[in-house]
């Protein structure tokens, strides 16, 4: 088993195929989208492949050590152009192929017009501890 991180982006990812902002959808389309993702997570929980998932607020702050005896330095809210993570899901699957398959499935969540968004998801493998036994 290997863990993978699925990253959803607010910004910074290539434009999806069905690129309509969420507040331009109908309330029913939003419900269908939310339900799709919930069903996806539920299914992975049953198959034992779900680890965790969280949504993140869009606003973040860069923080930096400010020097001895000084408060940390911040740059305020992210500039509009920066990459921004909307949320993530961690899965624990048997193979890279399975991870790709699941990411593709999640990217098919319905959006405007009930059609799949074809949203880009970033798939990142977790770095694991080195094995105790190497053959």
């Amino acid at each position, binding site marked *: 088993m290997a863990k993978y991180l699925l990253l959803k982006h607010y910004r910074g990812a290539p434009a999806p195929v069905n690129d309509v902002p969420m*507040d*331009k959808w*109908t309330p029913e389309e939003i*419900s269908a989208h939310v*339900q799709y993702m919930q069903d996806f997570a539920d299914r992975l929980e049953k198959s034992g492949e779900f680890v965790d998932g969280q949504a993140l607020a869009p606003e973040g702050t860069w923080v930096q050590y400010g020097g001895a005896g000084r408060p940390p330095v911040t740059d305020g809210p992210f500039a509009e152009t920066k990459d921004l993570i909307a949320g993530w899901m961690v899965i624990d699957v048997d193979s890279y192929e399975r991870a790709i398959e699941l990411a593709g499935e999640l990217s098919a969540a319905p959006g405007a017009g009930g059609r799949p968004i074809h949203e880009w998801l970033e798939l990142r493998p977790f770095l694991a501890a080195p094995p105790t036994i190497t053959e």
Partner: protein
Amino acid sequence: MDEALLRSLTPSMLGILVRRGADFAAAEDAVQDALIEAVRGWPADPPRDPKGWLVTVAWRKFLDATRADVARRRREDLVDEEPEPGPAPAVDDTLQLYFLCAHPSLTPASAVALTLRAVGGLTTRQIAQAYLVPEATMAQRISRAKRTVSGVRLDQPGDVGTVLRVLYLVFNEGYSGDVDLAAEAIRLTRQLTAAIDHPEVAGLLALMLLHHARRAARTAPDGSLVPLAEQDRGRWDTALIAEGVEILQTALARDRLGEFQAQAAVAALHADAPTAGETDWVQIVEWYDELARLTDSPVVRLNRAVAVGEADGPRAGLAALAALDGSLPRYVAVAAYLHERAGDLGEAARLYAEAAHQAPNFAERDHLTRQAARLNARRNR
């Protein structure tokens, strides 16, 4: 094995040990040891007086631990010199424990964790699950809290207001996993009401009951938020409402108004209306005026603006809003709602989308996005 009984006895055992001179952390360890013995021994040989049994065993465990600790020789002598303590009233012990767990030297997160552990008798795992943090994180939080209060003597009452704020924090945390924090907060506040006669304690209990009564109607089957005006009032728990209103009326009759009683009064007026349209908004505005006087909180004035919008019309609400700081949490959502009611749908849709962007949780974000989508769909038709 009656787990609920053990849980309900935990706080008074702790209280008794601490009042007999045990250090908080040592008392907690001793109580845990006694509980383990109870779990092992009771099924085969149940005691006639469970509490007396537990206190005796816990005190023996504490003495054993203290005596075994050579570095604590001096304290051992102190303990030996003390006369055998007589029985102490249980309610008093529990009350002292509430004050200790809400001690001002603790951060709110630590006070909440310690209260759930020591007064509520929840396991560290249960608390961790409820707060969605790893068990190790919660264990650290609790042991740091125990260290912080370990030098505090339990001989004088603390500030009731601090205890109430901690319980209100627990209530507002919602729930997940197998522990329902709102129900737990109600249980603890009921216990506190029995231990202390204070109108604000009653006010907080009434407030919790009135909010809790609406819980089933507050979310749709798919988990989305249902606003107060659209809730199916048939799904409100009328028994809880009746109890909350009665507790509130008794408290108000004592004429020592505080912020929890005033908040409960607002909740009671909502609970009282057979339909959303029949809500007594004029009286609600008056209660918000009282609350603003008692707390001077900007959040209260934001809620007041909503009530003014209902009582005197959306334009009056927007005027009340204009006097407030635009960076307040939920300010934009309130502005969106009032603009919609005033018929300014374009501006309302824009503000709902902006409010969704700032929303602090899933359910609220999705709800606000739906509001924006609904107005945009209507405008494009």
